[in-house]
């Protein structure tokens, strides 16, 4: 059951990512990015990361993408203009990119020759209990520093979006 699920959602993720890159309207790109994020959340569930999968849906597919769509609609962003690409880009871009992907895949496969199979349910330490325990004991200082980072980002966003600048 794992293999069809992985293949289905990996295909959705890659197809949505390609759609993100080739669409000319920003709203289409944003909706493709939502597709990538939701399918990645399913893959996180297959890897046993339940808390991160839920956070992915809520934070990324929810909050961040709503922010993106809000700004796209606020600025009334239209379709991109076509650029005058050189013939090199037109003819060699996609084949070279495919070769690059192939080389990367081959080297990753070669680096992990006897990699273990991923079985759903073999790793159960990714629930909210374990994540919360690690977050509030070992990683307490980074967690608290993150709260200051969020505060700075909040103030920075308000200052940047003021009328006077």
């Amino acid at each position, binding site marked *: 059951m794992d293999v069809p699920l992985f293949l289905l959602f990996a295909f959705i993720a890659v197809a949505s990512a390609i759609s993100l*890159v080739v669409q000319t309207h920003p709203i289409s790109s944003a909706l493709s990015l939502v597709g990538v994020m939701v399918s990645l959340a399913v893959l996180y569930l297959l890897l046993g990361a339940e*808390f*991160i999968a839920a956070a992915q849906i809520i934070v990324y597919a929810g909050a961040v993408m709503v922010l*993106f769509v809000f700004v796209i609609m606020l*600025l009334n962003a239209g379709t991109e203009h076509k650029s005058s690409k050189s013939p090199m880009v037109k003819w060699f871009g996609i084949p070279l990119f495919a070769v690059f*992907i192939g080389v990367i895949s081959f080297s*990753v496969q070669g680096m992990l020759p006897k990699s273990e199979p991923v079985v759903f349910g073999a790793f159960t330490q990714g629930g909210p209990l374990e*994540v919360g325990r690690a977050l509030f004991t070992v990683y307490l200082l980074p967690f608290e520093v993150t709260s200051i980072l*969020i505060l700075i980002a909040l103030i920075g966003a308000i200052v940047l979006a003021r009328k006077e600048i």
Partner: protein
Amino acid sequence: MPPIPAAVPLSWYLVLSAVLFSLGVAGFLFRKNIITVFMSIELMLNAVNLSFIAFSYHLKQVDGQIFSFFVMVVAAAEAAVGLGIILTVYKNRSTLEIDEINSMKN
């Protein structure tokens, strides 16, 4: 063609992560709308998160998931600040094309 294995090898997740990251780089380099460039950065961050969680499974430790949690938090903060910058740029320049935002050139 090799037969489909009974379970997914870990390397497939890493290959998927590499492919998504490369697509993010391609979008970052080839697109001209500043918002789409920003979304490509988010795609790259997501691809790295997938690697973190795959290695968390491989090591049977929760630390990789904590790291991807922090990446998520930083990405949310970055999105807020970055979109504020985009709003300011649009207010000053009335354009979203990154080729036209070149006042630091020359």
